[in-house]
């Protein structure tokens, strides 16, 4: 779709300039998040409790990390359908390393991230070298990894009971140890660290620059003498490594690697990214947006559940609000031009 919208962003103030540089677009989805939070607080007194806020953040952690990973790929103009099952695959490998092989915790962490990076670079190779459309390459990977998770685990969950510190990765609270009033679970902390690091990479390093450039006009980047294939593989590998972190988070939270889990998480992550304002046609996007998108999804599901809305209506309302949130975003963006 070659839409030649004459959107014009010329940030005037220095602050606006920095924000624009940092996010490459205004993150307007934020307003929708606030509206949701206020709405649910009014509707239910139980919603705005500290413990529920923490529960929402906790619920965002896995999907948030996946959304961060997939943002990178989407900015290059690609898509990654394999993030859900890749997360599971990384968790299973960690299970093998820690529980079956009895290795120390750190090695399990490394294994998860390395597995993700490896799987990601495989997807990247399919896309870059073999010129397979990202949709198909990652759909294939989604199935392959799903199957392999079941094969490797023998279709049984792998428990981490023998690795004492493991469940602390997501459930413990470093912040809470320092400031008892703020028992933010480590999983949430990790989400924010991952998001901050990735945002830095995206906006301040060559890799990030090429993410945007590839999504903007791949051929012109190639003709600038850039080894586009190598960079693309690197980007998919980085996304994979981040998915590996998501694998650690979910395994730690469930204290087990559940080999059958994972399908469906990819759509949710992609939805968070798009709600956050990243364009599926590539070239534009921000990590902050994806984070907010993931929060919107988590607030929405949690809020509706706290309100005890009947499940079937929850689905209807979620669908409607996702559309409305993006619509409101569009309107505000239009106005601000």
């Amino acid at each position: 779709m070659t839409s030649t919208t004459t959107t014009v962003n010329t940030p005037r103030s220095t602050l606006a300039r920095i924000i624009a540089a940092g996010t490459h677009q205004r993150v307007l989805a934020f307003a929708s998040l606030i509206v949701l939070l206020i709405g649910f607080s009014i509707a239910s007194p139980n919603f705005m409790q500290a413990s529920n806020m923490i529960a929402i953040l906790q619920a965002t952690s896995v999907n948030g990390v996946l959304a961060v990973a997939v943002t990178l790929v989407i900015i290059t103009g690609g898509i990654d359908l394999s993030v859900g099952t890749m997360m599971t695959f990384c968790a299973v490998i960690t299970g093998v390393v820690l529980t079956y092989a009895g290795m120390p915790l750190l090695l399990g962490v490394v294994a998860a991230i390395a597995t993700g990076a490896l799987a990601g670079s495989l997807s990247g190779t399919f896309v870059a070298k073999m010129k397979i459309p990202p949709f198909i390459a990652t759909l294939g990977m989604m199935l392959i990894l799903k199957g392999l998770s079941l094969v490797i685990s023998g279709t049984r969950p792998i428990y981490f009971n023998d690795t004492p510190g493991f469940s602390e990765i997501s459930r413990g609270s470093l912040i809470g140890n320092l400031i008892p009033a703020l028992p933010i679970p480590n999983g949430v902390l990790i989400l924010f660290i991952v998001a901050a690091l990735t945002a830095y990479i995206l906006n301040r390093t060559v890799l990030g620059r090429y993410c945007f450039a590839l999504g903007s006009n791949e051929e012109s980047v190639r003709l600038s003498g850039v080894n586009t294939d190598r960079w693309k593989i690197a980007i998919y590998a980085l996304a994979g490594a981040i998915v590996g972190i998501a694998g650690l988070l979910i395994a730690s939270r469930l204290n087990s690697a559940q080999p059958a889990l994972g399908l469906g998480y990819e759509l949710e992550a992609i939805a968070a990214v798009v709600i956050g304002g990243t364009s599926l046609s590539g070239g534009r996007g921000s990590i902050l947006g994806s984070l907010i998108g993931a929060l919107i999804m988590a607030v929405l599901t949690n809020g509706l559940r706290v309100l005890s809305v009947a499940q079937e209506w929850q689905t209807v309302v979620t669908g409607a609000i996702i559309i409305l949130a993006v619509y409101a975003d569009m309107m505000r963006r239009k106005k601000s031009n």
Partner: protein
Amino acid sequence: MSYLVEMKGIEKRFPGVHALKSVQFSLKPGEVHALMGENGAGKSTLMKIMSGIYARDGGEMFVDGNPVTPDSPRAAQDLGIGIIHQELSLMNDLTAAQNVLIGREPRRSFGRLDEAALNKKTAEIFASLQLAMDPRTQVSTQTIARQQLIEIAKALSYNPRVLIMDEPTAALNDAEIAELFKVIERLKADGVGIVYISHRMDEIKRIADRVTILRDGAYIDTVDAADTPLSKIIQLMVGREVTQNAPVFPDTSQSPVALEVRNLSRGKDVRDVSFDVRKGEILGFAGLMGAGRTEVARIIFGADPRDAGEILVGGQPVNIRTPHAAVDAGIGYLSEDRKHFGLAVDMTVRANIAMANMDQFTNRAGVLDEAAMKRIAVKYIERLGIRTPSDMQDVRLLSGGNQQKVVIAKWLLRDCDVLIFDEPTRGIDVGAKSEIYALLEDLAAQGRAIIVISSELPEVMRLSHRIAVMCEGRLTGILPGGANTTQEDIMELATQRESALVGAEETR
């Protein structure tokens, strides 16, 4: 006097740019009114207002004396105003005919298409343009020049009373330009008013009746084309005298060879091409459209695969299979199609200038040095006179000529030993053109080897130390540069067809 279109006190602001400052413009029936100005002067913007694409911020517009405010291209079309855009806007996956008659397809009952009628109608339009093209060819397979011709055919198919042509000849060769001018004469005779924008000064004398000059978004003057010398028009455009220093052609025959190409072949497009370029030399490439010059350049640059041939840089054979390898070997290539192959238009001027040169702006951890990028970008913006509110402006918001300058800046910064410029001055104004010529000569003087592919013969002759001429994929000869080589010499080689004897002449 009755004007077909009259515009008064037109104002237009974009964030950071006051693009039009109380501009006036008028068009009579049956005249060709040239709109002149430097890159970014506001020509395209004024015409986009006339054709309903932009809304004006102030001023008035009249058609046949009645005040109008066309708020969409459709509304302008209904007023009889048609436009051929500076940037191509075709549907690449569709055929030529499907493009030309989009929205007005001949139909049968139940929304069924009458494809035969569609192709026939388009064939008629093409015939009236003397354009030899199968209406069924897919647009994406055509060179930009031929795509431009399809655009022109599309605009004409509306039978407009006012036709705006925004740099229609930027991608055309002389023969096609001649055909286009014939069409313009016919339209004139029918009383159509034509607004003509071009940076090719010679054309103004050939077809324009009046000339309006804009500078920096302000109206300067409207003069009669016949009685105003070109130098005067240029002076009005630029605001100062442009001095054309006479070219010097240094003798480079003893310099070491920088690039040698041996027996390069690829299908029918490139057949057994061999040549060399020496350090400090500017080698021009002339030829008709489709002669294969772009293809030769792309193969050397590794953008397209080759069937056979060898490439030597500095006497060493190099194995170039990708542009990446070419750049490593010290070869740079500026594409003729900036929008598709030259720029990431959604990114900033700064990012685009740095694109071929990221190593220079990254530390070992891969962190970007934005400050250094900014410094360099600002330097080139000044040096090339790129008109932009800041180096953080998205490239797509620049005027066409300024976009071209950004691509040039990108390759100047890369500082390659061998630089191939494919139509480097496409859409660039006279003032900037001579600056770019000076730049190229500078680069050559510094010992770079330069290849310039250009469809403007005067440009090739002005710049080249030697002139290579291609025809139908073959290199038909290399002529010396300088005053001793005439246009006729070049044309003779450019039309030396091998297939002249082979019957049925095919377009591709």
